């Protein structure tokens, strides 16, 4: 393990979150790199899920077990950071409510909640990285003629107030300028298990999202929550569209990512 030279460096427990862990590990490595560039030391304890699927389906007792597991693994760190608004919000907003009547856990839940952040929030609001960021970024090579837009995931936007942070970061990436969709803040229809419980409604909502993407003729859609991004990407490819979808962290690396979620290649 590479210990940071700085003794006062913050210890960050990195919560990869299920979907990034299983489907898009490069999001995790990009996120870790960004956090390390702020002078933090990053650890990844063995972990599973924050319990969001059980919580949103109303199964509080199962959620409590998972919440306690997670608190146990992460409370030792100065901060917990996750590359997902909904998973970070689960810990930050919902854990304290979930465990408020448990005298052994309510304090611990609140304590971790206070130190939990979504990635862009952590970089911009907590680390207050000086803008422009010292990210050692190479100028983007092939973005000059690409239209890039951002989808605001609901949990991050409304539960954590994340809107400007990822945009600020992306604006530091030379060559990236953002075009805004008129429906960037409207739900894409993912909604966790909602998308498989009510697939027809979910499909309509993601089609509405894609109409917004099409209206500005975006080539690339970025966002901060893999659930939404997989939903949007999966519908885009099914409709035969070439628009690529990425997690925003992938676009803050030195090298530009090539293959988007669901295997899309850059438009030629």
């Amino acid at each position: 393990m590479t210990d940071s030279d700085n003794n006062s460096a913050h210890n960050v427990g990195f919560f990869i979150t299920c979907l990034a862990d299983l489907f898009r590990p490069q999001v995790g490595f990009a996120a870790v790199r960004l956090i390390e560039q702020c002078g933090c030391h990053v650890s990844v304890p063995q972990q599973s899920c924050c319990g969001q699927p059980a919580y949103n389906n109303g199964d509080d007792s199962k959620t409590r077990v998972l919440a306690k597991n997670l608190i146990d693994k992460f409370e030792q760190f100065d901060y917990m950071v996750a590359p997902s608004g909904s998973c970070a919000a689960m810990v930050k907003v919902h854990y304290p409510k979930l465990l408020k009547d448990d005298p052994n856990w309510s304090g611990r839940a609140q304590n971790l909640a206070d130190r939990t952040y979504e990635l862009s929030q952590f970089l911009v609001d907590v680390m207050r990285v000086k803008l422009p960021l010292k990210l050692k970024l190479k100028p983007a090579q092939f973005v000059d003629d690409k239209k890039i837009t951002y989808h605001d995931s609901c949990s991050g936007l409304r539960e954590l107030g994340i809107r400007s942070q990822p945009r600020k970061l992306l604006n530091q990436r030379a060559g990236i300028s953002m075009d805004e969709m008129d429906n960037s803040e409207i739900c894409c229809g993912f909604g966790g298990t909602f998308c498989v419980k009510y697939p027809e409604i979910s499909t309509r909502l993601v089609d509405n999202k894609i109409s917004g993407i099409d209206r500005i003729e975006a080539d690339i859609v970025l966002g901060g929550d893999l659930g939404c991004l997989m939903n949007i990407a999966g519908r885009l490819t099914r409709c035969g569209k070439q628009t690529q979808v990425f997690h925003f962290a992938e676009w803050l690396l030195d090298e530009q990512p090539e293959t988007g979620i669901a295997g899309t290649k850059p438009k030629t």
Partner: protein
Amino acid sequence: MKVLSQNFKSASKAALLNDDLRSALDRAEGGFVNTRKKAVAELRNFEDYRTYGQQVKDHTLKHLGYYLTQFENKVVKSGGHVHWAGNGEQANKIILDICSAANARKITKGKSMVSEEAATNKSLQDQGYEVIETDLGEYIIQLAGESPSHIIAPAVHKSKQNVTDLFHQHHSRLGFLEKVTEPEDIVNQARQVLRDHFCSADVGITGANFLVADTGSAVIVTNEGNGDLTASLPGVHIIIASIEKVIPDLVSLGGFLRLLGRSATGQIMSVYTTLFNGPKRKDDLDGPDQFHVVLLDNGRTEILKSKYQDILRCIRCGACLNHCPVYTNIGGHAYGWVYPGPIGSVLTPLLVGQTKAMHLPNACTLNGRCQTVCPVKIPLPSLLRQHRVDLVQMGAHSWAQKFGLWCWYSLASRPKWYNQITRILVAILARTATRGRFRWLPLARPWTATRDFPAPAQSTFQQLWKAQHRRKT
């Protein structure tokens, strides 16, 4: 009204396929959202008003008995009558008795969702009374034999063409032989037809947006003035209102009126705002001879004692509907009862039974947009989730759903197993995908019917991290 919420799945699917409904909803909802945004931005301290609205409602609900009694005393003092109804049936019985004592035949009605809840029209019609809805939207859906699909815009699902055809079908026997197609002509025709009814009605029934305890006033807010004509012209005015409509005084009314118009239609104030205070007094030129207020509980007292009490703050502005991605795509009828959208998805299960309406709180992405626009800050997503908690505790879900959740949980609660098993799954999926995605996967049809399923990378992040970490040390 018959509860059809259990058919939500099929009804919402059908609604999604209805192109007329879609274009009607697109037009209307887009308008509501934009006008609200503009009206809210113009009031610098709108957020303070929201907090005020929340606090005044919470205070009133905490002392509901006190304020209702005060309201009753004031109404009686001004010569009116107050009737208490435990449920819709009792409310209808009270109304029937009043109508029968007045030898009524024709009854005009202002818009009232509470009367929809009590199914008052049907009870009156069953007894042979002629009932005419006078709000234009309500009038349209009455002609169509439908129920409201929005709490403030009941005919929002109807296109102009629908209305042209309906009017032609029903008004030609009244001498209106030409089809009216322009909005102005449509409104004019409705006005002419309704004018006769206003003048010949024996009883007028309206709802109330607010009941002011301190003055005994019933406040009715409309844009068409139909509420005023319904209330003032017949000899008998009956107000039907649910008990949580009471607010302390005229000062608080000022706050709520600022919130209501802006949240509902994006108006600074609705066109007509009238305070009704009892029957005609000796020197009044007009007004009803009798003034009745029917206060309906219908489960509110129980809700007040429950985890759902915040929902009683609702002032029925409809902003949560207009901002709900699900409502704005399926319309109101799919919800299967009186109140649709986020407010309906919380309220309907409480009023008709949680298992009957179990789809409603589940058919929500918990995106939270409704909560951000609610003028009285009702935590709608939390209340929707609370229903889900109750449903799990009741064991209401299907075995397939319980089994699915159990499988996932068994894995997720054991991080070691989770890591091992997900590694294997990810490796298999990565090797079997074509071009980084799946068009089909076993058991994943709800997803793959309309969307490709993105394939995972060869290894999980935790697996790769561990390998790197091992190399470094």
